[in-house]
């Protein structure tokens, strides 16, 4: 049976088509102001790739900020459960998921069956989110996708450590005005974001394997810094875009309905 998962986030919308335990197709688009529009566009993209129509899909599970608005979802599941499910399906040894989303970050702990045991969101006033990187990319005139690569070329170890993310921005502005090298600033940014998120995982007491999901996982700078931050190597999802993990989880859950 063919199922679909649709994850309408604050910054992006994702969809996954799933059949007998394999991913047939997937799509990611920047979220539109209207979540309905986002969901319809992204699911169509995924369906087209697999030459399918909505009629072929037996069940769809929706998740993410905009889940309530997805018109074609048969049922809804929280991001927490979906991310746990997706990561566990991809890497059965996964016991922890760290997801840095556009709006918030989460650490999720699960049992050997991928069931959520505990979870936590980013602290208020000390949040590390994908949005943070976007704003910084703007301020530093760097493409979001290049940040990781550029950051790796750092020479000087800088620190961006204010607890408030927004004030961390003003810290960056100061560094820019001190004419610090962009690569050095980026590196400091990645470490600061990674450490904010690392504390989430630590507060649940870390259990390997730890998987990092969400768009930011593509940023090698943050990814590596996160391993540093939690004190053991973080794993990436195998063979799939970390951004679609939520939608994947949703699709898997749909297949179990």
């Amino acid at each position, binding site marked *: 049976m063919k199922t679909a998962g649709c994850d309408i986030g604050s910054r992006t919308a994702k969809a996954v088509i799933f059949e007998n335990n394999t991913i047939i197709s997937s799509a990611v688009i920047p979220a539109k102001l209207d979540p309905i529009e986002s969901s319809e566009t992204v699911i169509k993209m995924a369906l087209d790739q697999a030459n399918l129509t909505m009629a072929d899909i037996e069940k769809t599970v929706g998740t993410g900020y905009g889940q309530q608005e997805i018109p074609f979802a048969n049922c809804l599941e929280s991001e927490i459960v979906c991310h746990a499910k997706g990561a566990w399906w991809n890497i059965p040894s996964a016991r922890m998921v760290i997801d840095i989303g556009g709006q918030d970050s989460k650490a999720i702990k699960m049992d050997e069956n991928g069931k959520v045991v505990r979870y936590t969101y980013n602290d208020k006033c000390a949040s590390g*989110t994908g949005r943070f990187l976007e704003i910084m990319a703007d301020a530093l005139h760097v493409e979001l996708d290049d940040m990781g690569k550029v950051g790796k070329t750092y020479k000087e170890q800088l620190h961006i450590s204010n607890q408030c993310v927004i004030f961390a921005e*003003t810290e960056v502005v100061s560094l820019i005005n001190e004419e610090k090298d962009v690569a050095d600033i980026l590196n400091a940014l990645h470490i600061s974001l990674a450490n904010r998120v690392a504390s989430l995982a630590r507060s649940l007491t870390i259990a390997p394997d730890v998987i990092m999901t969400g768009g930011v996982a593509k940023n090698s700078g943050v990814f590596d810094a996160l391993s540093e931050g939690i004190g053991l190597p973080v794993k990436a999802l195998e063979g799939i875009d970390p951004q679609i993990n939520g939608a994947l989880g949703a699709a898997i859950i749909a297949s179990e309905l």
Partner: protein
Amino acid sequence: MSIVAGFDVGSLSTKAVIIKNNKLAGSAIIKSGPKPVESANKVMKKLLDETGLLQTDIQASVGTGYGREKISFIDKAVSEISCHAKGAQWFVPSARTIIDIGGQDCKVIKLDKDGNIKKFITNDKCASGTGRFLDVMAKVMNIDVSELGKLSQKSTKPISFASICTVWAQADVIKHINSRRPAEDICAGINVAMANRVSMLTNVIKVENDICMTGGVAKNSGVVKALSSILGCRIKKIKKTDPQLVGAIGAALFAQEYR
């Protein structure tokens, strides 16, 4: 004849003005680049092109803004707070309280009649209550920050949301968008939240009339309206010129003094 210049290298935009015989003779605004020096040089070039002056014609110049220390060609650097106060009072001589909401922070400055600072306060708590707050929200709303004011005026019942922390306010706004609340009510809510934060700062140093508002946010009629209703007094705006220029103008006026 006196020709002086003022430069304001801010985190988001860089501004420059020429003041000729105590009259505004030309101005330039550009988006700040990654390097303040370059921004300063760029804006200087633009300014000279606009006014047809040569750099050598400028008898004195003062720089302000986050990047002030880095500007190569200025005679002196003065803090934004002094410059905004100076500039605002030049336009509104009766002004005793200046509210300036910039990209990175919000300042409220109390002056005596000679433009000396009696007291000032800036937001230290969070960026909510700064231009950044509105930028972030506008981005989430997918509109230009300049539209926030216009849009909000149609609102009948502003939505109240978490406004203490910008990051979490953002999450709230997205929730409201997704639950299809009218954009104007969300915008109005954003403006009111903003005004609340600013009014608190303002009341800390106890306002004296007249109040004059400067900085980019002064263009947002929604915030200004909400703010004056909370403070319960009229807020004068600078009509003659773009409120963003006030800092640079203040700097130029200082240059006039040092000249």
